[in-house]
């Protein structure tokens, strides 16, 4: 069995290496560069934040430990989520499976190979944050050298638990409810995880939920420092944080927690392996039957449209709503955002002074822009690559790529603007910002949305992945990373450009300093010029690249 597993995995590795080799040098270098920038940037921020916390009197170091523990807990839930979302397509819906199941290898080997693949695929993004986090923690707490290898090994072991849980959960769900489609399975799993997390926190650590009722910054800090453990002793994140913390003193605690983590991971793996042995093949077969179920579909393309733009739009919409990984993930994103917006209303900590309110409003604006950038990379970047099945048709038809991209641009822009403005307006309403900021921010938001859509659509055309069907994998590819970096760089640059006028505005309003009209006008003019450039250029690059491409 081990041999079969090695065979499958080495075939995978060869495919991966071939894909790496086929990357052009420029792309490979920019890919590495982007990842390095991200990791180093995150490391720098962590070092600064941790350094600050270590210097807070009395409660600082305790607070830092809580923060780490909280982060690891959030990572765990995030890993569960991303594993559930990708599990269905990895274990049941990939083309390679038909081939693998026809081979004379036991299904459990296929399961293990797929588990590894899914684990890597679902976890690498979290790891790019987790590595700088634990290293910065080690540096700031003066951990001994052995801390670094051990903590990295621990976090890798830690990654396996959510992957195993997610695969087992999905296998069982499909097995007991074979009639469910992928979207229902994913939705039910996510709902289960959310519900169980809530219940667990509520039963195990009801104090944690009081966080929403704290009155001001001081009591929030005290509150956080007093919490014994955020997640409770039964959660892997607690063990992992105990391992990390153990190096400061109680080495025996580190050893104990490491062994605990290791054995729990092994047991989880074993249980999921047994579950796979019992139901993987049957579950896989039943999803096949389900997808062959004959359904007659009627839609707005049941009759031809008299307009090319409308035709493209309707086609895109149909494909979007019929692809569960697309709209399930979009819904999850939007629900989280709504929760965030409402939490702004429920935490009145900062809102005593107008100055604080305005600062929170600016921070919120930056945050929403980053969220929109993420949404753009995940949903807009892959749209051109998703044309792969029809690219032979589009390329040979009297339809210019310019028109295809413009239709996609306008539609995505409308969606992005709606999301951006609803979030901005409702958040600013809850924060109760002043009238000027309330009116100005949506205008800036328009430029940000238009630029982010252009960057992701343009780079999606410049770096398409025409041999991948799964949109989240397209977004996670090298082109997607470049788009992510560009989007983040755009938002960062915009914030830097707007910071000077914003600062001037604040000091005028709250400290009676004079208005520097020149600074304000120059700042906004520069922002508009910069955004115009980032709206026009990426689209042009994308169109030209498609027109010159060999399909």
């Amino acid at each position: 069995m081990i041999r079969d597993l090695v065979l499958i995995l080495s075939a995978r590795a060869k495919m991966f290496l071939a894909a790496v080799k086929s990357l052009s040098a420029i792309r490979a270098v920019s890919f590495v560069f982007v990842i390095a920038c991200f990791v180093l940037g995150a490391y720098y921020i962590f070092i600064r934040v941790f350094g600050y916390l270590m210097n807070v009197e009395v409660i600082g170091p305790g607070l830092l430990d809580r923060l780490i523990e909280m982060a690891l807990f959030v990572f765990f839930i995030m890993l569960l989520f991303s594993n559930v979302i990708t599990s269905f397509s990895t274990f049941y819906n990939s083309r390679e499976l038909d081939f693998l199941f026809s081979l004379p290898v036991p299904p459990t080997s296929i399961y293990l190979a797929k588990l590894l693949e899914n684990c890597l695929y679902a976890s690498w993004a979290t790891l790019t944050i987790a590595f700088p986090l634990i290293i910065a923690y080690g540096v700031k707490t003066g951990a001994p050298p052995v801390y670094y290898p051990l903590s990295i090994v621990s976090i890798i072991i830690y990654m396996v638990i959510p992957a195993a849980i997610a695969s087992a959960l999905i296998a069982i769900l499909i097995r007991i409810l074979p009639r469910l489609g992928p979207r229902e399975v994913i939705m039910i799993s996510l709902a289960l995880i959310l519900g169980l997390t809530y219940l667990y926190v509520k039963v195990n650590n009801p104090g944690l939920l009081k966080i929403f009722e704290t009155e001001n910054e001081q009591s929030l800090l005290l509150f956080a420092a007093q919490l014994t453990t955020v997640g409770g002793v039964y959660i892997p994140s607690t063990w992992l944080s105990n391992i990390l913390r153990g190096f400061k003193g109680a080495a025996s605690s580190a050893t104990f927690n490491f062994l605990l983590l290791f054995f729990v991971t092994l047991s989880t793996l074993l249980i999921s392996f047994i579950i796979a042995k019992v139901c993987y093949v049957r579950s896989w077969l039943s999803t096949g039957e389900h997808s062959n179920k004959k359904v007659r579909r009627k839609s707005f393309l049941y009759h031809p449209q008299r307009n090319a733009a409308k035709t493209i739009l309707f086609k895109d919409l149909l494909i979007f709503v019929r692809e569960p990984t697309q709209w399930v993930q979009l819904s999850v994103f939007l629900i989280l955002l709504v929760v965030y917006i409402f939490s702004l209303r429920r935490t009145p900590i900062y809102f005593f002074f107008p100055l604080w309110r305005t600062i929170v409003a600016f921070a919120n604006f930056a945050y929403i822009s980053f969220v929109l950038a993420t949404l753009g990379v995940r949903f807009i970047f892959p749209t051109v690559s998703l044309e792969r099945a029809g690219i032979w048709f589009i390329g040979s038809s009297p339809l210019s790529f310019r028109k295809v991209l413009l239709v996609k641009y306008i539609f995505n822009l409308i969606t992005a603007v709606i999301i951006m403005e609803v979030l901005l307006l409702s958040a600013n309403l809850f924060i109760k910002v002043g009238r000027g900021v309330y009116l100005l921010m949506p205008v800036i938001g328009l430029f940000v949305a238009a630029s982010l859509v252009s960057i992701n659509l343009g780079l999606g055309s410049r770096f398409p992945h025409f041999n991948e069907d799964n949109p989240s994998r397209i977004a996670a590819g090298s082109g997607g990373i470049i788009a992510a970096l560009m989007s983040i760089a755009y938002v960062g640059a915009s914030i830097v450009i707007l910071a000077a006028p914003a600062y001037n505005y604040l000091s005028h309003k709250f400290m009676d300093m004079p208005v520097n009209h020149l600074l304000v006008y120059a700042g906004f003019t520069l922002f508009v010029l910069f955004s115009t450039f980032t709206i026009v250029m990426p689209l042009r690059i994308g169109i030209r690249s498609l027109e010159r491409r060999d399909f």
Partner: protein
Amino acid sequence: MNRLVIKNLRKKFNNVWALESLNLELNQGEIFVLLGPNGAGKTTTLKLIAGLLRPTEGEITIEGIDLSEDPIKAKSFIGYVPDEPFIYNKLTGREFINFVAGIYNVRNPDYETRLAELMDILDIGPWIDELSESYSHGMKQRVIMCQLLMHNPDLVLIDEPLVGLDPKTSKTVREIFVKLKDEGKTLFISTHTLSFAREIATKIGIINRGELKFIGDMEELSRISGKKDIEDIYLKLSDDNGIVQR
């Protein structure tokens, strides 16, 4: 005016010539069949004419319009059928056909009756409203054929049309090709099936390793090569030494 004129067309992939200096003229009512073994350059040629590949050298003119100068106008005359029948998985066959009609701006009033007729001929009616992810290779090919006939182009480019079709559909498809020719359309078909070429071609080309070894009709072909059987001729011509001077 010639329907299709190709002058000195060449295509290089990563420093290897996949197609070397192709010259060709096709008129109304012709069926040109391009024969050649695997890797000969047939797909490359068709994709170049369809505008999916950019020529390294040479020019392609369709109805007097240079493909590189006004691609949109030139492409409005063509209909291309790829060797791999790709359809958007999440669309039904009918939706794909209507999608194509929407792009080509097909506006005839009897659209629905014509579609029903074609669905009958190609025998795609029973499953046309199911998602195409459940279709077999041949089913997708038939949908793509239907799409082509709905927008009814003047220059039809088809890559390996018979692969994956059952005998009945393959007969239907051949009849459709002949009917199109009789209507004055021009067909450019690539294949490695010899009998198919003998049956419907008005003009034959034989290509090997990116070079056109022969172009002409059946009689010319047997006269030059001195053989009666097309199979022998083909084997002789696609042999590397058997280059025939025109």
